[in-house]
């Protein structure tokens, strides 16, 4: 018979059976330990490290921990919470997670953890490492840009004669999951679907079976936590209390979608205009700064020399700089060109595209036009950014809440469905 034991989790006494898995025990007692590699019915893999907890003062992973009598376990200390956040951010930086263009968006475990933890931007610079997308397998697509190397598929997906379908190849930062074409072809449709569902992110896709649920009905669209971001400071100080707050906005390498979303705050726009005056902005069509601004809102990353100039000007002229939307935060859709050589990009655009004139032979280059940068840069890699509002585009409510809070110092929370990366 299994022994009944007593442990504590964050000081809370818990009675359970000896040798059980900590993640499961915690969950039953209302304490959620997030995981990306642990799957209830398979042996723990301990690859993602997100479930790192402290056992009697020492760090270890929750998924490999079998509880024993007298264990004192810490799960939600500020340090551990931040570690967890840091690991998710690191995964975002190492992979190329363009949520707006991902088939798994809304159904992705990692994205959902990002929402739950209120991650607006990664603290780490994006690696933009070139990774492959393999379309060759019969049923599946392997999208290595999104793979977090959790190892679930490697360990769990086998053919009927016990051979591995997936394997880690290479090591270190070059490690990737590859599919064995011959073995993959032996999988049935339902076995392939199981592989896709095992994948916590959008790395394993089954051809033709990807877009099932419409936007709004996806697994994580409806359920989730509210995000309570902390903005430092108690609002901005104006020199003259009767003066309005001055805000500037711009769109760099973006699509103006974030600006459109800004306008979507509808009638609150009238409230906003009572306390805010727009200076340089496409909304006012003021081309040059005429005074110092309290807040600068930047949409889009930097793809050319003009973007860099404008961004630096914003930094000089604004007290607070906000990155608005995925492109400003991490380069977004334009940054997908970072994996293609600049030469290829330019040749495709000006010389070889279907719409280029027959015999086209010039790539624009003149001192009067901006120069294209070697890569698309997130704003934060060029200037210091104070706040981030994620989304593609961010919802109007989210933008409004952040801006109002910055101006007035009011506390606020963002509902799960307002906090999105897509």
């Amino acid at each position, binding site marked *: 018979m299994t022994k009944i034991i007593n442990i504590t989790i964050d000081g809370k006494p818990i009675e359970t059976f000896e040798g059980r898995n900590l993640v499961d025990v915690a969950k039953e007692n209302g304490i959620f330990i997030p995981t990306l590699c642990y799957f209830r019915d398979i042996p*723990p893999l*301990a*690859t*993602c*490290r997100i479930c*790192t907890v402290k056992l009697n003062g020492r*760090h*270890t992973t929750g998924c*490999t921990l079998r509880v024993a009598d007298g264990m004192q376990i810490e799960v939600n200390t500020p*340090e551990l919470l931040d*570690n967890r956040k*840091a*690991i998710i951010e*690191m*995964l975002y*930086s*190492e992979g190329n997670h363009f949520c707006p263009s991902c088939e798994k968006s809304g159904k992705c475990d990692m994205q959902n953890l990002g929402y739950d933890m209120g991650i607006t931007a990664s*603290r*780490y*610079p994006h*690696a933009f490492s070139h990774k492959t997308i393999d379309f060759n397998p019969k049923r599946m697509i392997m999208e290595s840009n999104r793979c977090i*190397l959790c*190892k679930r598929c490697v360990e769990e997906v086998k*053919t009927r004669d016990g*051979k*591995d*379908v997936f*394997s*880690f*190849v290479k*090591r*270190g*930062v*070059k*490690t990737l999951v*590859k*599919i*064995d074409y*011959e*073995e993959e072809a032996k999988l049935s449709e339902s076995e392939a679907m199981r592989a896709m569902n095992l994948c916590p992110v959008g790395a394993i896709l089954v051809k033709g079976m990807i877009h099932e649920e419409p936007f709004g009905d996806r697994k994580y669209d409806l359920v989730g936590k509210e995000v309570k971001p902390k903005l430092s400071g108690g609002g901005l100080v104006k020199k003259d209390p009767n003066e309005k707050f001055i805000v500037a906005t711009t769109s760099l390498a973006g699509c103006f979608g974030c600006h459109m979303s800004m306008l979507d705050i509808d009638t609150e726009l009238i409230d906003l205009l009572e306390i805010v005056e727009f200076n340089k902005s496409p909304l006012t069509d003021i081309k040059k700064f005429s005074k110092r601004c309290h807040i600068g809102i930047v949409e889009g990353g930097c793809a050319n*020399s003009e973007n*860099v100039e404008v961004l630096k000007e914003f*930094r*000089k002229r604004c007290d607070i700089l906000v990155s608005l939307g995925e492109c400003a935060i991490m380069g977004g859709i334009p940054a997908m060109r970072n994996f293609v050589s*600049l030469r290829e990009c*330019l*040749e495709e655009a000006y010389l070889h595209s279907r719409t280029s004139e027959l015999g086209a*032979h*010039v*790539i624009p*280059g003149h001192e009067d036009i901006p*120069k*294209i940068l*070697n*890569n698309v*840069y997130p704003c934060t*890699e*060029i*200037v*210091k950014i104070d706040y981030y509002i994620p989304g593609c585009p961010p919802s109007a409510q989210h933008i409004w809440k952040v801006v109002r809070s910055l101006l007035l110092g009011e506390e606020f929370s963002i509902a799960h469905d307002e906090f999105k990366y897509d």
Partner: protein
Amino acid sequence: MFKTHKPDRKHLMEVLWDIQKNKRCIESEEIVKVAQAFDMSRIELEGIISFYHFYHFDDAGKYTVYLDTSIIAEHGGRQEIRQAFEEATGTTFGSVTPDLTFGLFDTPCIGLSDQEPACLINFRPFTSLTPQKVFNIVTQLKAGKRPSEICDVPKTNIRYTPPADRTVFFKPYEKFSALAALRDRTPDEIIDTVEQSKLAGYGGAFFPTGKKWRFCRQTPAEKRYVIANADEGEPGTFKDRVLLQTHPELLIEGLIFAAYAVGASEGAIYLRAEYMYLKEELDRLLVEYRRKGFLGKNIPAKTPFEFDLYVHLGAGAYVCGEETALIHSMEGRRGEPGTKEYFPVQKGFLGQPTVVNNVETLSAVPRVFEAGVENWLKVGTAKTPGTKIISVSGDCTNPGIYEIEWGTDFNDFLRMTGARDPKMVQLSGPSGVCVAVAVDPKTGLYLVDGQDRRALSGEDLACGGSFMIFDETRNILKVLKSYSDFFVAESCGLCVPCRTGNFLLNKKLQKLINGHGEKKDLHEITEWSEIIKTTSRCGLGQFSNNSLLLAIDKFPDVIDRALADNTDFNPAFNIETATAEYDRIVEEINANYD
């Protein structure tokens, strides 16, 4: 080769080695054949091959040169040697000559830090290289000489041993003599003696050897294993190489003791591929031990037992020095560390209780029985009796091997090595600790982190074996960057903090070296290092930034000099560099058609 039955997976790496050596690469045809023979999918096999950097998918050249990249080699003039190889062979590092004669590759420390710059050619050692020597070697190889004919025998460079009655390792030993102790002792009595001797893991973790053996013995199992960890990969360490060059019989006998004590019937020496040239002698000795009846069935002891032993060759992966990774590697899998749910003494090789001990630890065992516990305890310190082998390299007159008593004063030791203006000493390699060294103006003694009377011992400065000396002129940031390069290259890739955390830190260090560092970078380095330390899966990640964190603390002047005040603009972003490629393309394409 494998016609009738499915071959044993534990021989997979051996089979891969045969192919690599004969064909200079493992081609896709061979991969298909081997995968079929071992009944695994092709991709699984590719995953294994690509894990080890000495296996190649493409032809690695008739003569494959591996040049040591360690910081000690760098300070010893590696760049010149690199150039000489490139000039002499007409190819660049990372590639093979068009006629497939020479392949040039970089590799981390090859255990010859006292005779750098050094390289391996077809796994034969060539030491103390000069550009002239390189040209000679290449000329001779081109003229048809074989690497085995012209290679060097690495010097043992044993610089110091304690007085004869206090020396443990480097004194004459009569083969088989200590094994007599088995005749009148039960396995439990052997473990008792080892426990009383306070013998502890010489790899640096100091886990009590007797305790480890007892755990293994007590775990019920059909079969148990003992393994010698000769995967000496920590940069700057070469003590195991010298032990194997001078007293390989001590290791074999240590394993026989361990096998008897824990009840193991099979054992192995996991030898790093960099020491392939030591394998011949080991294999020869194993034959001799078998012939004398000390390996095989009915080995003479109080309760006669069965035990045999083979040498398993690694294939280039530092992480395999971690015991669970080593076990996976021996099982013919990727050398990834395990989940740590079990200790190897509970579930190890092939799921059975397994003892993994360092070469030095096992080599000490016959000496414990030779000396007797009482005499043994007279040497060294209370917590760490006995002696310790230190591999000294870097800026000193006498690099080499020092067998010292635990408890030796740091100042005395550093004097012995003939250190020249030492500024920093790296103990136990990059994953160990760095100490700041300065001369006390009053006494003229070396101070360690500002203190005198520091000793090398388990109680104070515990050194796993590597002792690298850096003088006043060395750029500490570059030393730290070289450590980081090493960990980035050797991370197994299984967990993100180690895999990507170290990659990002590496970039950060380069930023500092480039002169673009800001104060906030230092804050980030500290924060990121802590996260890597607390969340990594195995020791490689957990200890990878030890030295970095310590150096920030101990050499504030060096780090501060590299940091500017914070600004709102990232100094590392340069618009000219970012647009240079565009300028070049526009100029080139538009000019072509003009």
